[in-house]
Every structure is written in structure tokens, then in C-alpha cells.
């Protein structure tokens, strides 16, 4: 773990950012209409400009920001909770954020307030799961996951009650939020969410060292001058803030937070100082790919319809994850 040098850190991050940017560029080439990417901007038709600037780019950016948040918060959760199956979706943190944002929308809050509403609910969900699974300074891995499952069921019940009370149109929107669906958003909203995600990512990366020490047990960490509780709180806070920021816009996008950390650790090794930012870039890359599939697969078919991105991430993510588990079992 000491082998992490500034050079390796920079090289890996730069490489993954370049990959994410390339994929984002490729994704903005793909769509209903192909755009004249190799001609001057001023020579573009107004329709093409609109398609790129008002529709495709914001969507690719939203996918990138959402993937960053889910990938890096998933990595932090898995490290902190010492559990390879921990992710915001499974632990009920995302559902908490969904309930918070539905409540926020129902109360008619302005958009800027909704991520914080969602954050409060996701942090509460996180703390509840954590407190329940904590037994004498140790986290019981099965209790952790089971608590997440139960909490998810409980929060979904609340969401379904709200759904039953909502008007027909609102109910439709709640369903899309539950499936996980990316829509073209305004740059203002994406910017706000991106700011929160960036702040969370910096905090999580800075906590990477503490996370590394915590993996060797709270006692060892304490003997090395680390206050486990203080760092746990920071990680929970930052990760919940990121999830709370993206869920109001993207809904419950599953599996990204679960399998991206595995890819990140496979690429970078277990050091959280590197695996957390790496997971952000990998998460962005993968969610851009999944959303490009979601918006293009059926759009030129007889159905002429888009798919919810949550369905695509689950379709891609579940088999991938099974494969990963099988491989791990063998090695």
C-alpha cells in the first residue's frame, strides 16, 4: 500500500479521465441523428446545435456526474463497511434519498433545496443501517446487508404510499424516479449537482488514507493515531451528500455503486486514495455507456421509445457481478 506514488496517482487519474472524456465524446456522436462533428461549429445547422447543446451534452454530463457519485461513494461504503456487496442502492441510502426528494418535490420546494432534503434522508438511512449492524465495535456483514434490505422495503412502502396519494402525472414521475432514468436537464441543475459531487469526491479521496488504516481494524487505526468514529462520520456524510445530490435528478440507478468499486480496485489495487477517484471516473464512463444504450437501443425501432437507464445498468450489471463473484470464488 505504501507503493502509491504521486506519479502513479496522477498517471492513473489522468488516464481514466482521458478515457471518460473520450467515451463522453463518442457518446455525444451517437444518437437519433448523427452530428457533423468534424466540421466547424459555425457551419452547424441550428437543429444540430440544439441536439448537441440542449439535449445530448447535458444528458451525457448528467450521466457522468451520476456515475461519479455512485462509483466513488460505493467504493467508500465498501471500504468503510468492509463489505464487497455494500452499495448505496442495496443499503437503502439511495431509497432514502428518493423518499427525501419525492417529499421535497411534493412540498413544492425549489430545486436547489431538494438535494439537501434527499441528503438528510439518505444520511438518516445510512446511520440507521450502520447503528443496527454495529456489534461491539464490529460490523456484522450479514446484519448490514439484511438491514439494508429491510430498510429498502420500509422506505419503498413510504414511497408507494406517496405514489398512491399523488395525482396521475406525479405518480408517473415517481415510477420513473424508482426505475432510474436520466433526462435532459438544465446546466444550472447539473452544475449544482456537480459541485456537490465534486466536494464529496474531494472529501472521500482525502479520507482515503484513514479508510486504508480502518481496514486493518479500529484498534490498529487508533494505535496509529486515527479516530475511527470521526473519519467514519466524514465518509458517511460525504457519501450521503453525493447520493442525495444525484438521486433527485437520476432516480434509483442500481448496480453502478456495486460493481464499479470492484473494477476500480482491479485497476488500481486496494489503496482508497487512488481507488476512490478512479471509481468516480470509471463510474462516469460506464454510466455514460449505459445511458447511451438506453437512449438509442429502441429509439429507431418501431417502438420509437427510450428505455430507463436503471433497466440497462441492471441488465449489464447483474450478470457482470455474478461473473465477478464466480471468479473470486475460484481464485
Amino acid at each position, binding site marked *: 500500500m505504501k507503493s502509491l506514488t504521486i506519479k502513479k496517482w496522477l498517471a492513473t487519474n489522468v488516464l481514466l479521465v482521458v478515457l471518460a472524456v473520450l467515451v463522453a465524446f463518442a457518446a455525444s456522436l451517437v444518437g437519433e441523428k448523427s452530428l457533423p462533428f468534424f466540421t466547424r461549429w459555425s457551419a452547424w445547422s441550428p437543429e444540430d446545435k440544439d*441536439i448537441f447543446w440542449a439535449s445530448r451534452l447535458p444528458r451525457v454530463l448528467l450521466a457522468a456526474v451520476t456515475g461519479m457519485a455512485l462509483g466513488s461513494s460505493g467504493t467508500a461504503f465498501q471500504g468503510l463497511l468492509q463489505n464487497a456487496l455494500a452499495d448505496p442502492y442495496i443499503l437503502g441510502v439511495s431509497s432514502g434519498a428518493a423518499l427525501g426528494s419525492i417529499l421535497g418535490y411534493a412540498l413544492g420546494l425549489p430545486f436547489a433545496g431538494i438535494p439537501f432534503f434527499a441528503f438528510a434522508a439518505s444520511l438518516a438511512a445510512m446511520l440507521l443501517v450502520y447503528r443496527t449492524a454495529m456489534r461491539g465495535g464490529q460490523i456484522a456483514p450479514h446484519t448490514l446487508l439484511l438491514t439494508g434490505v429491510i430498510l429498502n422495503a420500509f422506505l419503498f412502502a413510504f414511497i408507494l404510499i406517496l405514489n398512491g396519494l399523488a395525482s396521475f402525472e406525479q405518480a408517473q414521475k415517481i415510477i420513473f424516479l424508482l426505475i432510474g432514468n436520466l433526462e435532459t436537464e438544465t446546466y444550472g441543475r447539473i452544475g449544482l449537482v456537480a459541485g456537490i459531487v465534486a466536494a464529496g469526491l474531494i472529501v472521500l479521496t482525502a479520507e482515503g488514507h484513514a479508510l486504508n488504516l480502518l481496514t486493518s481494524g479500529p484498534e490498529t487505526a487508533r494505535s496509529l493515531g486515527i479516530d475511527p468514529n470521526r473519519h467514519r462520520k466524514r465518509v458517511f456524510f460525504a457519501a450521503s451528500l453525493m447520493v442525495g445530490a444525484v438521486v433527485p435528478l437520476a432516480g434509483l440507478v442500481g448496480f453502478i455503486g456495486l460493481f464499479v468499486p470492484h473494477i476500480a480496485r482491479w485497476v488500481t489495487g486496494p489503496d482508497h486514495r487512488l481507488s476512490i477517484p478512479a471509481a468516480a471516473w470509471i463510474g462516469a464512463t460506464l454510466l455514460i455507456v449505459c445511458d447511451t444504450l438506453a437512449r438509442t437501443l429502441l429509439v429507431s425501432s418501431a417502438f420509437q421509445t427510450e428505455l430507463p437507464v436503471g433497466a440497462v445498468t441492471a441488465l449489464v450489471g447483474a450478470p457482470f457481478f455474478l461473473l465477478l463473484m464466480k471468479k473470486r470464488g475460484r481464485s
Partner: protein
Amino acid sequence: MRRAFRLAVVALCLFFSAPAFSYERIVSFRPNVTEILFALGLGSKVVGVTSFCRYPPEAEKIEKIGGYFNRSLEKTLSLKPDLVVMVPDATTPKVEAALRRSKIEVVVVKADTVSDVETAVRTIAAKAGVSDKAEALIQNMHLRREALLKSVDGLPKKKALMVIQRRPLIAAGGGTFLDDLLKDAGLQNIAGSSSLPYPHFSLETVIAKAPEVIIDLDPSDAGDYWSRYPSLPAVKNGAVAKLSPDLFVPGPRIPDALQALIDATRAR
């Protein structure tokens, strides 16, 4: 012999007229069904409606049996209906079976297209013994439609998009009564070729297909949503019409909806 014949005639009349006039307690499972019942003069016999039945205004005062899909069978039974009228969806077969088991008559009418609506009017009227009213109503709808068709005759066939919901973007696709209305207004539905009735439409597709008219039926405030896409011809020409979805119900008010659609999109 004569007396026997007279008795037979009276008996026959009673026999055939009995079911036709015996519905005194009708429950409607859809807003458009409620509108049809009222238009056929059966409003006073309606004892139960959904919470979405807001037209005519009298319907709001009637007992509610639930919403669109979450209607209460118990509430329906407690109203002691002798006839329940419903539009088929995923939830109706079970309710229908349960009602029939309780010996309550059920009429199921489709309402996907304009011609479905006419059939629905005729079916309900025949069941309730007011077929003459149905013919008058349909005749009136036809006359109004023809006059409206004439008013748009010769106007250019503009490309149009009807938006049910902006976020996610759900459009009126082919095979729906909304698609029929767009055609009648002399508009060409850019989502009409989708094989889904209400496709989740891609914003890029909308921009690429360049609708000249957009009819926005989303009840929430549009804000600056459409102005973010200035290349859309409909936006450029100020041809984004925000209409209330309450009028676009597949029932007797179809000519009113068509009138509103034409007024908002063609009368300039």
C-alpha cells in the same frame, strides 16, 4: 284469443323493456364513461364515480369509488349498483369477475380511438335503453366534426407533437384518440408512427423531426422548458400551445377538444 294475444304483446313488451329501464344505480369506472352517461341523460342514475371524474360538475358530488386503477370493490358493492361500466385495463378482469359473481351487470367498453368512443356510446345506450339518444349524440358529434374538418380544409399539413408529460417526455403515439384528433385538425403527428400508444419520446428525435406545432398537455407549469430548444420550428414561430388535459377525454366532448386544438394551433 284476442285477449291472449294482447297479453302476450304486453308480456313481450315488459320482457324486453324490463332490462332496458331497470338500471337505477350505475357506477362508472372512468371519467370518459361518466361523461358518456351524463351525455345520454343517465346522470341522475349514476351513484358512483372515480375521483378523477370532474366533468360535468355534478359528477364531483357523486360518491367516489377510488382512482384510476386503485378502485375499491367493497365501496362499489356498498353502493348496490345494478350496472357498472368500465374501460378494460390490467386491473378490470378481476373486478369484472367479482361483480358478476355478485350478480351485478357489467358493461366493458373500449375507448382507445374516436370510433371506439362512438361504439362505447352506442353500447352503453343500448344497455340502458336510450339508443335514440345515442344516435342523436353521435349525429351531433359528426356534424360538429365535419364543420371543424371544413374549417381546416386546405390548410398546410403541419408537423405536430402532442406532449402528455414533459419529464420524462411522453408523447401521444399512433392508434390513440389523440392521434385521431391531430389528424382531424389537419396536423401530422410526428410520434404517430410509433407502435406504442404513449412512447417515451427522445428529445433528440423531437428536435430532428422538427415539429411546427407542439401541444403541451402536461398540467404543470412549463417554465422555460421549450425555449431551451430554440431551433424547434414550433418554438421559433411561437406555436407551442399549452392546453388543459381535462378536455382531452375520450368521450362526448371530443368535438370540444378538437375545437380547442384547432383554435390553439390553426386559427392564425
